[in-house]
């Protein structure tokens, strides 16, 4: 063998256009150039347009006076206040409707799921009809059905519908008798808050001791008893009247007092939470059905009562499957609350829309809106992911 060349050479035989390392670097540079190029092109265009239309990119307008009214602000607001304050009003509205919506949708969705799994055929069918109805119509149509059809049929103020409670229902909203704090009410609330805190701490400590020592510590009765003692004490300290029922009364033109839910809020809240409840019901049903039948049979075999089978065996296992899709349902609900614009509920998006229409501040306002929703999404998924990690299997 006079030919001592190696069969496979390191570089010589591979042309550069087939060398994977070079291709990768080339692709990297090419994609970077294309993406950055498009961005620069768009920004140049924007500055041209901005010059032509005298637009600004700063957020300094937030301090200026807003000048537009917001109906039924949840926090103090009048048109002379700043744009920033208007945004806050919108944000509080968004948080209110999605927070309450999440709570209600979770409770109602779980109930629907349990009804769907019921051995009673009629109940299970009713739940199925509810789920299939809500899952197959667009949320906006559901919103219009509630807002324009149901709340559209409500009578004028003078012919208000009266329900026990008393609850009054008319064109201007729902008026509910609501307990309001009296002068001494503050003492009661403080005592109640301390009581809740103390009983939670006692609950955790006693339960931990029970887990470590194995001795009965009666953590549930102990903490509940503490709670009742604190509440009673607070009630006595406040002179027996911490609350006064604020009953809505008719003043000739309108109802005054009580808690007022506007038709916009009620329509938004109901359609959002019923729509999401249908999806949550399917999530919960899937989670419960995924629990191995043998687990339930084993729990019954060792003599656990039905409630404990549910709370100690089914739920902990089902939750592991339920939580991740539940997180995305909560996020959907929060994002869907932006449909409020269609019926004139002043959420963050609707307020932003007014600000855009008022002056050419489209870009900063949009950045603000997107940032708000993004941080809401990230915050929700962050908190729930921590919870999710806690309830997942602990693998050793």
């Amino acid at each position, binding site marked *: 063998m006079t030919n001592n060349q190696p069969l496979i050479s390191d570089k010589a035989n591979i042309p550069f256009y087939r060398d994977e390392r070079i291709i990768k670097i080339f692709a990297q540079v090419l994609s970077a150039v294309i993406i950055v190029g498009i961005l620069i092109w768009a920004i140049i265009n924007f500055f041209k347009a901005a010059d032509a239309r005298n637009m600004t990119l700063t957020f300094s307008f937030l301090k200026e006076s807003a000048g537009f009214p917001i109906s039924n602000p949840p926090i103090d607001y009048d048109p002379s206040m700043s744009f920033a304050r208007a945004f806050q009003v919108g944000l509080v509205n968004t948080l209110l409707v999605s927070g309450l919506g999440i709570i209600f949708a979770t409770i109602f969705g779980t109930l629907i799921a349990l009804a769907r799994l019921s051995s009673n055929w*009629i109940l299970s069918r009713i739940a199925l009809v509810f789920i299939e109805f809500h899952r197959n119509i667009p949320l906006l149509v559901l919103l219009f059905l509630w807002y324009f059809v149901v709340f559209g049929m409500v009578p004028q103020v003078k012919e208000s519908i009266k329900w026990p409670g008393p609850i009054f229902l008319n064109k201007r909203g729902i008026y509910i008798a609501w307990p309001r704090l009296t002068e001494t009410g503050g003492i009661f609330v403080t005592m109640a808050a301390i009581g809740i805190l103390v009983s939670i701490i006692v609950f955790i400590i006693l339960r931990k001791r029970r887990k470590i020592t194995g001795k009965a510590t009666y953590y549930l009765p102990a903490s509940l008893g503490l709670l009742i003692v604190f509440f009673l004490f607070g009630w006595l300290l406040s002179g027996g009247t911490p609350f006064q029922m604020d009953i809505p009364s008719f003043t000739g033109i309108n109802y005054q007092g009580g808690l007022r839910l506007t038709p916009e809020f009620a329509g938004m809240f109901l359609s959002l939470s019923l729509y999401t409840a249908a999806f949550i019901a399917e999530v919960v049903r899937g989670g419960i059905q995924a629990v191995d039948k043998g687990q339930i049979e084993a729990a019954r075999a060792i003599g656990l009562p039905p409630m404990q089978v549910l709370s100690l065996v089914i739920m902990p296992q089902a939750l592991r499957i339920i939580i991740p899709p539940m997180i995305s349902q909560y996020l959907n609900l929060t994002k869907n609350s932006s449909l409020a614009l269609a019926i004139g509920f002043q959420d963050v998006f609707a307020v932003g829309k007014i600000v855009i229409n008022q002056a050419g501040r489209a870009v900063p306002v949009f950045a603000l809106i997107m940032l708000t929703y993004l941080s809401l999404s990230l915050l929700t998924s962050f908190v729930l992911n921590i919870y999710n990690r806690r309830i997942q299997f602990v693998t050793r």
Partner: protein
Amino acid sequence: MINTEIEQEMIKPPLPPGPLKWVKENLFSSIFNSVMTVALIPIVFYLLFSVVSWALFSADWRAVTQFPLLYTVGQYPRDQIWRVGVILSSIFLFLGISWGRWGGLLRSISLAAGLVCLVTALLPVQHPQLDQGVRLFLGSNTVMILIGYFIGRIKAVKASVIVVGWLLIPICAVVLLAGIENSELIPNVPTTLWGGLLVTFLLAAGGILLSFPLGVALAFGRRSDLPVLSGFSTIFIEVIRGVPLVTILFMFSIILALFLPVESRIDRLVRALMAVTVFSAAYSAENVRGGLQSVPLGQIEAAKALGMSNLKTTVFIVLPQALRAVLPAIAGQFISLFKDTTLVVIIGINDFLGIGRSIINSDPEFVQLRTEVYIFIALIYWIFSYLMSLASRRLETAMGISDNL
């Protein structure tokens, strides 16, 4: 002898549950259940009775029945309406062809569509917009499906031809609907005149067809080992998924114009389609990515060992398995895209829901009839998305990826 006796005992089938047994097991299995059944039956009957009697006797369906054309095509010029007819007929023809070739679920869809056309054509009611021409057209659609069926049965017609035909229909449809400038035969029809179900279906079909490839591309982009590409794809997907669709719709209808050259004008409907596409693509990308992760590494290694190129491995080995695994999720995504097209109402496009709203607002008399209009709209959306979910379930069963039969 003993052996056969046991066998005989074993093969005795269980008695079919009689109606009485069924009632006992499902309605009166315990005291609590019996109480519930007794309480629920009158409520259900009362609700059913009041809904049916309202729909038949007290509801005034005028605002729905007077404007069938408005609900289907919006303000599309009435003398140009044959274009919509041509598109509809060709869709029915291809539906028939596909039925002849593949059968199964397509058979049910074709039969249902043909039946609906035939029944509408023969409806024994007087209606100004249901004249003889329209009746003839609807009847011919039923014939179209049958003709298609027999074409589909011919073995010489290749399956690939049918698929290409299906893909060509939307493109031809858009060209035909929009028309050509200065043309005698098909003059330009501005999209502001389009409306109703036509726009809803265009947005949904266009969104599905465009967002899916974009979603697959984004999924690959996110999994790519080029940091620039994967970083960009990740940011894109996460930002789009983090904000509501309304924001994206407004971004495309207001903000996009600021970032394009001043002289360029993108049509309103196209901007809405872009928004829907981008939104849906981000969600599809995450679904597809889930599928890509589920493909075992051994599959890719085996393909490489056989000497397949990267592209071939992706197209013939990875994608088919990945898409099959996430078919239910993708189908669900398409159904929600169909429902989400209603949001274009907010940026002022008259889709099916928008037309209903315009009809209500057009006449003070119709404002009183809004209940009927909104219920009709809800019903139509419900039927279409329920059919879509039914189809996806049938497809899953046919492909053997679902456990519920």
